[in-house]
């Protein structure tokens, strides 16, 4: 199975929490195999499990290998990208879409307790901030499975001098064409 293709799939994933937890436990009871090695075993249940694996913003999975420790593993089952639309006293609102949804526009609205934000990220919470929210399971100490959410705000790079110069050049190109068109329009006397 092409893992990248799997990651990019827009298929909606339905899941059963108890079944997923059982699969996670079974997976953990095996040695630290890479995903591809596990795929080679041809287990139907593993394939089903892999369908529920979504690349988390914190890169839970890198190049097909589970990089978290055997004792403390996080597995994402839903991964949303969101933009903050309103900030209230204890909660904030956001428009979100599944990261792997090919439709570019958000479909859901979340109201999220601010407790979900790391203290160090609180200053990033403002209208227009972009974040990723991941829902998944963490397996701790080889046996305990807990449901967990991760909320990570996206930190955007600075505008460089080159970025500004490029944007100005592109603006001029578009602006000149629009002005030329506008003047032509006026000259032709269109109503």
């Amino acid at each position, binding site marked *: 199975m092409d893992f990248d293709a799997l990651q990019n799939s827009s298929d909606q994933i339905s899941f059963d929490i108890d079944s997923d937890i059982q699969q996670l436990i079974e997976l953990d009871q095996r040695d630290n195999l890479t995903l591809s090695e596990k795929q080679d075993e041809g287990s139907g249940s593993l394939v089903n499990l892999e369908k529920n694996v979504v690349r988390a913003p914190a890169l839970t999975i890198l190049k097909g290998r589970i990089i978290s420790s055997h004792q403390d593993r996080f597995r994402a089952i839903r991964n949303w990208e969101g933009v903050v639309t*309103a900030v209230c006293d204890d909660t904030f609102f956001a428009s979100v879409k599944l990261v792997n949804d090919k439709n570019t*526009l*958000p479909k859901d609205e979340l109201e999220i307790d601010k407790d979900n934000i790391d203290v160090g990220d609180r200053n990033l919470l403002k209208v227009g901030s972009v974040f990723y929210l991941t829902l998944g399971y963490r397996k701790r100490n080889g046996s305990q499975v807990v449901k967990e959410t991760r909320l990570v705000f996206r930190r955007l790079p*600075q*505008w460089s001098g080159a970025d500004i110069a490029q944007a100005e050049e592109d*603006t001029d190109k578009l602006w000149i064409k629009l002005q030329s068109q*506008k003047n032509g329009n006026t000259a032709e006397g*269109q109503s």
Partner: protein
Amino acid sequence: MEILQKANLDQPENDQLEISLFGPSYGECIVVHYGNGKWLTIDSCLEDDRSTPAAISYFNEIGVDLSNITHVIVTHPDGDHIGGIGKLLSACADSTLVVSSVLSDRQMVAYTTYYAQSDTSSLTQTTKELYDILNESLKRHPYTPKYVLQDTLIIENDFVKITALSPSSSKINNFLARVSQNLPQKNTNRIVPASLTPNAVSLVILVEVDGFSAILGADLEEHPGRGWTEIMNNSITYSNAPGCILLKIPHHGSSNADCPAFWNSMKGATAILAPFKRGNVQLPTQLDVERILNYTNNAFSTTRFSTQSKVKDHNVDKTLKEHGIQRKQLFPKLGHLRFRVKVHNVAQLALFKNAVHLSMVNSTEHVH
């Protein structure tokens, strides 16, 4: 006026004015049949599939060839008014793009270019949509964009006259000053585009037919001496217009768009709106509803807030709830209000899909 709870979706007669309003509580779109099979659109919103512009769905449904769409009007550059506008403009290949004069200013072109090209999230579509329609407009010779401000004539023929009642030049200058302040600077952090609060530069459209008129209020707000008062005091077209029989209520019925003097000037008119819901903002509020119904009982909404569904995937939502996260469908379902009138005939308002009387906009009751 005759209210139709059930009506056929069909094309209007050649001498019939139609004004249809679509709205899913985030976004609105108006289509106008202005005689002899010719149409224009005002703003754009998306169908419940979050992909297809509502105007295109409607034209397809009633069998209107898109070559009959002569004008695509964008009232102001705000996210809830331009959903899918790029798709709509591309599909209506023989149409003229009509926009506010603000879009002919280099600062505004720069703003859209900066943010459209550096837009880091698919969730912030507004500037990308603007950038796309500016570029699309370059391919449309001879249908080049028309930049309008107060009292600019858009269409005039034997049947109808369509004019912009706003924005005023002073509003445009104020808006462009805000645009300049929000242009990115070197070595500053990138942010998603700030809201430029463009309601003040909304295009309000006046549709005049023999003996009556309709006013389509976009999101124009009212502040002392500005907004609607500016139209009443300064617009020559408005002062000469025949009596208004239909108002698309501005800014989703909000109190900051309310102008009692304006309402008093159009007693007896039918009022329609598309509600707005995003984050913790919901318009109209119950107080807004009561205020509007005091002006006219003939007031209608394209949809109800309660059509916004809560749970879609029980297991996921149960787990989210355990972590203090509530999920809802982002948009209530779309509805459609269709106003039709012929000269010297009784007007009809037909309600489709989730459209209701305004008194029901906050209702959770099932509506048949």
